[in-house]
């Protein structure tokens, strides 16, 4: 699902989740959460987390343990064995490395292209600006899956099937990124700053380097995070463009689920390995990711 887009509403209200919610005086909301609120939220957290916990349990058990009633709900002793097995059978090591290369390149490239174009759309005047922006935004909603067949014919002609650039290059096209960076710069970069630099005789390139980049950096970081997670988790196109010879993590998981490994606990060990890197990013920067999603939602 390519849902990293922003709603068309134009309300730039206080939505920085890092800031405390505005106190609305004594009489008004937000109400304090009662016991029921905490109970329901805790239940939601448990439901969110259980599949992760189960992955760990299943990955550390044997297949025989998993075919038992009642099920064993605690981690077992087989984790290392299963991990070794899946590294051998599905080449998850190579897949992890490939995913890192692919997602890293997509992230760097997307953030760069988006910042450049976002700056032009936010602050520069040129013929065709409105048209190009409309074109970009209107394709934001169109699922990339619909373009998959000609794209495949294209990379087949270029002899790129099974090569990582087949996934990287199309991955750089992010209408959302351009739109996101445009919003960031419209809001955080005052026109006077650019005019002042112009008066001082700075060229556009100079302005981009010394004025725009420093101000855009926090937005670029958030876009980078979201892009990395989306690229890491992307499924359809990598499955089409790559194979088990040169897999990303998702392609390797598809092979695992495709039935040639029958050991459920080994499959879960592979799932664990494939999910761990994003979970790590999420654990370290979850707050920023939450902020980015809420920002993207309101800034539109």
């Amino acid at each position: 699902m390519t849902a990293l887009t922003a709603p068309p509403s134009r309300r730039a209200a206080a939505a920085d989740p890092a800031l405390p919610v505005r106190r609305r005086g004594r009489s008004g909301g937000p109400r304090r959460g009662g016991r029921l609120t905490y109970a329901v939220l805790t239940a939601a957290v448990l439901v969110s987390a259980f599949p992760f916990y189960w992955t760990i349990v299943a990955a550390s058990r044997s297949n025989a343990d998993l075919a038992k009633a009642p099920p064993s709900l605690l981690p077992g002793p087989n984790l290392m064995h299963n991990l070794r097995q899946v590294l051998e059978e599905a080449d998850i090591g190579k897949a992890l490395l490939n995913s890192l290369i692919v997602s890293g390149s997509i992230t760097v490239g997307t953030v760069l292209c988006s910042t450049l174009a976002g700056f032009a759309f936010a602050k520069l005047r040129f013929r065709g600006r409105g048209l190009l922006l409309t074109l970009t935004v209107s394709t934001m909603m169109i699922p990339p899956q619909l373009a998959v067949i000609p794209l495949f014919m294209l990379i087949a002609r270029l002899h790129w099937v099974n090569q990582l650039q087949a996934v990287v290059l199309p991955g750089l096209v992010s209408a959302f990124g351009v739109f996101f960076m445009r919003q960031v710069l419209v809001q955080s970069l005052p026109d006077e700053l650019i005019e002042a630099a112009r008066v001082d005789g700075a060229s556009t390139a100079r302005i981009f380097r010394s004025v725009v980049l420093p101000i855009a950096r926090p937005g670029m970081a958030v876009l980078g995070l979201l892009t990395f997670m989306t690229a890491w988790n992307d499924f359809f196109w990598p499955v089409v463009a790559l194979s088990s010879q040169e897999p990303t993590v998702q392609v390797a998981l598809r092979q695992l689920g495709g039935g040639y490994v029958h050991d459920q606990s080994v499959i879960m060990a592979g799932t664990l390995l494939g999910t761990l890197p994003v979970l790590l990013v999420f654990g370290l920067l979850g707050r920023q990711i939450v902020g980015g999603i809420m920002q993207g939602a309101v800034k539109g």
Partner: protein
Amino acid sequence: MTRPAPATAAAGTGTGPPPAARRVRRSLAPYAYVAPFFTLFAAFGLFPLLYTAFVSLHRVELQTPGVMEWRGLDNYTALFSDSYFWTALRNTFTIGVLSTVPQLAMALGLAHLLNRRLRARTFFRTAVLLPYATSVAAATLVFAQLFGRDFGIVNQLLALAGIGPVDWQTGTVASQLAVSSIVVWRWTGYNALIYLAGMQSIPSELYEAAELDGASGWRQFVHVTLPGLRPTIVFTTVVSTIGATQLFGEPLLFEGSVSGGISHQYQTLGLYLYEQGWGFFHLGRAAAIAWVMFLLILILVGANAFLVRSRSRKEAVR
């Protein structure tokens, strides 16, 4: 195609070219900034999208993607006479409803609770977003196990309540419910955060006024929160609908087969496209399916806009 003007290098430094040359350079510079994006966009975004329609009028085999043989509307007539196409269309619709409606309703409730004054606010927000961090593939592999017929946790829990065992793979309704639950699990928290952001931008004066009028919490939710969230709700509905139309990874990996179950009971259009293109090697046919999906999305988004407009008109009359 919309490739913008030549990418004159943006390397203007401060040292003095004559003013006229400088003006020209300044008026061309913006194109250099949008050029990298639009070059890629034209080659890997717009061109393939439009070309899909053209490919769908040809016979193209997966092994020889360079050879195109004109067939007119044959791919479409073949499509419409294939009963599996209609099954996939129906499944896409029912799975779409089963996954989108509960997802958005629960997200709305969750956002309402997250909007209260809470201890550990950041923790709760981050924790409900956790499923969003997983991939379709990982989530589906885990859920496929949880929904196992003989030893899956879901059935063992249901057995405690005296229900089951449910065959989550073979039954049409059961398998579609199981596939939908993966979508619901992954996206509810994400949508809750979007709603939360929308709720926080509703002016607090509105709540204060409602409070003065003696409106209860529920009435405040119905008469202040929901109308304030209208644009956000429309947005999430559109995005989820589009997502549901192209559902692919969940039905593919639920049992690992491209047919979406023995009797295609949960094969979606996305999976049907993949089966035709990469299972049966008919790229032209697959392109026709892609184009049908595109039209379907246009219709659904259009219907959505129409519903919203007629509703707000009705309210204006009231």
